[in-house]
């Protein structure tokens, strides 16, 4: 089975975020970056399917040169090779534009299965996978907690709201968006890290494959949300703050 895993590099989870001079994005200059967590789960699901059924796992990333670091990490975990669509300024593409770049980068490939995380931790649109499926004419299913191969098709467990699930059977080729927690994430081994250095990364210039459609939506401003609730921050050392809180819970909120 040839499995493509869409992987995005995003600012590290604990980053302190500031808006940049344009006011339309964040200042990325001092940030550390990491693999988008839901995509890490998509990679894990892909690697496990390969281990069970054979084939190859190919990582597909759209992003600036710094994303190479995340691609190497995925290769070290066991992906076989990667495609890196290089784009210095991701912000000039909307979801449809990014999915279009992914679709065109995949033209030489004939994947059986495409996996993406269900959303990114930065923009959080939660739709790149589904849009890519539509552009490629593939069936899809979202928010997947389990994947099982039955000949010619797959059976997946979809998460619905409030603890409900449904099983769905989908013919291959297909695209799935993977929910965090589908499997335990592996660490890269030393051997894996060594091997990753020799694995192929096919680089494609975004400008070379762009279809040129103007974005359908744009971010006009990014800002810190206005507070709607009055929060009382209790200060002092741990003991003082704890004592102040207990007093408020006892006499203010009356829950003690």
């Amino acid at each position, binding site marked *: 089975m040839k499995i493509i895993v869409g992987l995005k590099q995003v600012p590290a989870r604990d980053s302190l975020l500031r808006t940049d001079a344009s006011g339309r994005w964040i200042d990325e200059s001092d940030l550390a970056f990491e693999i988008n967590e839901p995509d890490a789960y998509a990679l894990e699901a892909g690697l496990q399917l390969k281990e069970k059924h054979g084939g190859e796992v190919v990582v597909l990333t759209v992003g600036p040169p710094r994303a190479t670091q995340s691609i190497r990490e995925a290769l070290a975990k066991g992906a076989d090779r990667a495609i890196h669509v290089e784009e210095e300024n991701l912000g000039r593409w909307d979801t449809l534009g990014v999915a279009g770049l992914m679709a065109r980068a995949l033209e030489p490939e004939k994947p059986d299965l495409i996996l993406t995380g269900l959303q990114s931790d*930065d923009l959080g649109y*939660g739709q790149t996978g589904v849009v890519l499926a539509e552009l490629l004419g593939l*069936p899809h299913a979202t928010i997947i907690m389990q994947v099982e191969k039955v000949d010619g098709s797959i059976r997946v467990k979809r998460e619905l709201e409030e603890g409900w699930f449904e*099983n769905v059977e*989908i013919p291959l080729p297909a695209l799935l968006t993977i929910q965090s927690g589908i499997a335990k994430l592996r660490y890269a081994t030393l051997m894996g890290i060594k091997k990753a250095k020799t694995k192929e990364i096919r680089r494609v210039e975004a400008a070379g494959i762009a279809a040129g459609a103007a974005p359908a939506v744009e*971010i006009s401003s990014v*800002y810190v949300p206005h507070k709607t609730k009055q929060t009382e921050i*209790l200060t002092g050392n741990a*003991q003082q703050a704890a004592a102040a809180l207990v007093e408020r819970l006892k006499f203010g909120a009356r829950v003690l």
Partner: protein
Amino acid sequence: MSILVILEQRGGVWNRMSFETLAAAAQMGREMGQPVSAAVAGDRVAALAAEAAAYKVAKVYAIEHELLARYTADAYTAAFEQLIRSANPDLVLMPHTYRVRDFAPKLATRFGRVLVSDAVGHRIEDGRPVLVRQLFQGKLNADLRFTSAAPNFASIQAGAYRADSLEAGGGAVESFAPELSASAIRTKPGEPFRESQRGVDLTAAGIIVSVGRGIKEKDNIAVVERLAEALGGELAASRPICDNGWLPMERQVGSSGQTVAPKLYVAVGISGAIQHLVGMKGSKTIVAINKDENAPIFEVADYGIVGDLFEVVPALVEEIKKAKG
């Protein structure tokens, strides 16, 4: 100019977020001077459409077809695409449900458009909507504008608008018969199911102490467990804790877990991603303990302590024991 709201039902039961989205549309419609229509799809939805038409709407489309009895992305996308091409709305609004997340990006792509997903608010500028949505798990907000001609698409976050603001009215019900063929539906969904009877009913708890990523390791959970014990509350968690298998899934609070509204909710080491907030923001009193003063959890907290949970929580346990004598 007009707004079309796609309402959601399953087995004849409304998803209540449908009416929050209708309320959002009503407000935008008022502000832009545009009529609002709605649509509901299924195998038999005329009665539901009539219910929705009791609100102040121009029209409710009952999209009926036997192939819409059970949800599939292929059938629902095709049905809504046909309605939109025939009704020509400027803006299509949907509730940001799991189902909408499954088909709406596909639907927007059919029109060469991009769905603005999970919007939490809006304002009107020059007669056009500017939608507000969260970035970076709620740490920042962004204003989004449509830069393409109609139709445009957006989905609305749970709880962002109040359904009880809807006015009564009386619109017409119009039936719409999409052309669908069974051979074009590629996925085969089974009957929805629940994993097992829940052992823990968090919704009945008066006090909940919830733990998140800040706890770092499984062995540290005991620290927070002692706080739950001292308060006489239930222990719960945000999704990553359950993903790691540190606590069972049945203790998860959030959009994929349980929705709770206890009299006291203590969030320990939880940053407050929206998926968690929607499951607990209705709590009467919310306490947040987090080392990051910019964590979105402080947005919904009544009381906050910015600090190291491994210092604050044991101190809190001690103070509670003192207070309880």
